[in-house]
């Protein structure tokens, strides 16, 4: 059981880091190296999308290996995170639309918020049940 968990975790880590690298390649490559070459821009974006789908499948594979308590902890954390992301994301969008902030609302802030909320809710739920 532990060996299988370790294997699935390693697979997810590999997919995640590859996805991060492909995101960096698509972002900075398109900005700094091949900004004029459309086919390279499209290729790196498609590559990033494909690797992202692989990462999602690896995450599902790991999730399916969780036992019932681990699933409960993760599902409760995900549910809270989804709700918070919708509420905070829309409020953030509103303050941009109404010009209460000078800069544009960046998706990166929302992604950061989602990651942070998921981590905090996981810690809280682990404390509750374990």
């Amino acid at each position: 059981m532990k060996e299988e968990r370790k294997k699935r975790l390693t697979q997810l880590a590999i997919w995640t880091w590859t996805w991060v690298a492909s995101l960096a390649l698509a972002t900075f490559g398109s900005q700094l190296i091949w900004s004029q070459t459309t086919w390279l821009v499209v290729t790196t974006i498609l590559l990033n999308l494909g690797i992202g789908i692989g990462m999602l499948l690896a995450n599902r594979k790991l999730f399916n290996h969780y036992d019932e308590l681990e699933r409960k902890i993760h599902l409760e954390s995900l549910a809270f995170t989804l709700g918070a992301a919708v509420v905070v994301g829309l409020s953030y969008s509103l303050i941009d639309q109404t010009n209460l902030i000078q800069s544009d609302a960046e998706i990166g802030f929302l992604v950061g918020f989602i990651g942070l909320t998921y981590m905090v809710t996981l810690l809280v739920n682990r404390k509750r049940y374990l």
Partner: protein
Amino acid sequence: MKNKVHELRKSKGLTQEQLAELIGVSRQTINAIEKEKFDPSLVTAFKMAQLFELPIEQFFMFETQ
């Protein structure tokens, strides 16, 4: 839900790790069940019943609020 999993596990001479391995859950899940922080699924309860050779209602006590 109140339960007697801790006593039954001890009477069988099993550690949390061993019981977890036998019924296919993590040690943390067994610990959470024993501390009555988590109610297991029906499948897990039936596996425990088979292992302890007792009906479920003899070690999980349902109480209405």
